[in-house]
């Protein structure tokens, strides 16, 4: 595109790389990435913890599931931007409102995935645990958690990709820094080089998480499936 349409709207990869280097060494890239990643990870861990606990409860209790399943459908389909705007109005343009908006957007996905995981638990393993008089902790460690792990990992993977996207959108909507905030500033000046350099840096961070953390973790936890 840069070869066909030279100009500031289609910068070359070299120009983007130079811009990236400038932001990295003299600009605010590191601090913006730090802010965005902090928000993303606080939201991620909060949503995973709450979503897993509630998902287990919904999977175990038919009554709870009947009570909350329609709310879950609403949560899954409510536009992310609506939640963010509502929270910004109610709580102001605060860090807490931003993170809470991300958590509330991710929660239904985690809850649904974990609920389905719990529903798929094998009654045979429960019977094995009863026959051999497993204690609560032994049952949790060797029967419940291993059956839940593939679903936790699936929720983590899909949830993380969702969070990467919505954190940036919410930062555009109202924040005092972060990758999304900076991209919105570049947008106001039609600074495509700036947008692409920040995007490249962000994608690099996502790749680092994918290949240095998520995949090795997944490989380790699910090695019993992969060693065929």
């Amino acid at each position, binding site marked *: 595109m840069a070869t066909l349409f030279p100009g500031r709207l289609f910068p070359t990869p070299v120009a983007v790389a130079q811009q990236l280097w400038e932001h990295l060494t003299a600009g605010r890239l590191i601090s913006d990435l730090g802010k965005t990643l902090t928000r993303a990870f606080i939201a991620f861990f909060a949503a995973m913890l709450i979503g897993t606990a509630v998902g287990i409860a919904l999977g175990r209790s038919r009554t709870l599931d009947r009570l909350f399943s329609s709310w879950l459908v609403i949560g899954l389909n409510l536009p992310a931007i609506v939640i963010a705007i509502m929270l910004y109005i109610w709580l102001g343009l605060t860090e807490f409102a931003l993170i809470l908006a991300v958590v509330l957007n991710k929660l239904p996905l985690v809850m649904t995935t974990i609920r389905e995981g719990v529903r798929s638990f094998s009654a045979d393993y429960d019977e094995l645990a*009863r026959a051999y008089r497993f204690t609560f902790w032994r049952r949790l460690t060797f029967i419940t958690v291993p059956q839940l792990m593939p679903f936790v990992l699936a929720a983590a993977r899909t949830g993380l990709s969702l969070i990467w996207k919505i954190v940036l959108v919410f930062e555009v909507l109202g924040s005092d820094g972060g990758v999304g905030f900076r991209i919105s500033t570049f947008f106001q000046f039609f600074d495509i080089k700036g947008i692409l350099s920040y995007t490249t840096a962000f994608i690099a961070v996502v790749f680092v998480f994918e290949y240095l953390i998520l995949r090795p973790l997944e490989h380790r936890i699910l090695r019993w499936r992969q060693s065929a």
Partner: protein
Amino acid sequence: MIGPELKIDIEGKRFELLPPLLSGFSLTVEPSSVVALVGASGVGKSTLLRMIGGIDTVFTGRVTVDGAPAAEAPPPGFVFQDPRLLPWLSALDNIRVVRKDTTRGEAAEMLRRVGLAGYEDAFPHQLSGGMQRRVAIARAFSVNSRLLLLDEPFVSLDRTLVKEVEALLQSLLDATRPTTVFVTHLPEDAAMLADRAVVLAGRPARIVADFRFDSRRGDRSRTELEHIANQIAAASLEPASYG
């Protein structure tokens, strides 16, 4: 070591709207004897085994293991119809998981006794059906239980594997002498492995025949095995009373 005595007195056992599976059912199993429960599918053999194992406690009546209610008795060695190994644990850890105190060395020794030395780190899906069954047997014996419960231990195995697993069970039973109850629908398996065969039929299930064999299991000739199997098969075919 001698196995416990089992006393089974079931007033009633039913599944929701169905007619009672067991009603007014009594059976005593002597210490260290090997008893086969023989009967058609659905007669209640496996349910009875689960009650003895303390897994199924939803019934009226009493099942005791040396005087203690089954669910409060020490864990039995239980072999299910399927190997029921935990797929996320290695063969060695599948043995260790059922008893906290089993060391790696003891678990490895159990695997060696069932002919699986060298497979300690194999996951269940890396083992054949027969090998998985042997791990399940090693697991059952590893709890050092005086009570062994086997639910159709030969089902879905080909005849060569049946012989292999039978020989393995014979040697382990001779070595440890637990009280053993095993469920089967095949008279041949009962003839091969049991000191006593209890034939069940009907709904609610009742005992239609109770055979005690004088000869030592493992020493029975081919003719004797056939004779015993025919006896059990004939009893199984007797018309059962329903209702």
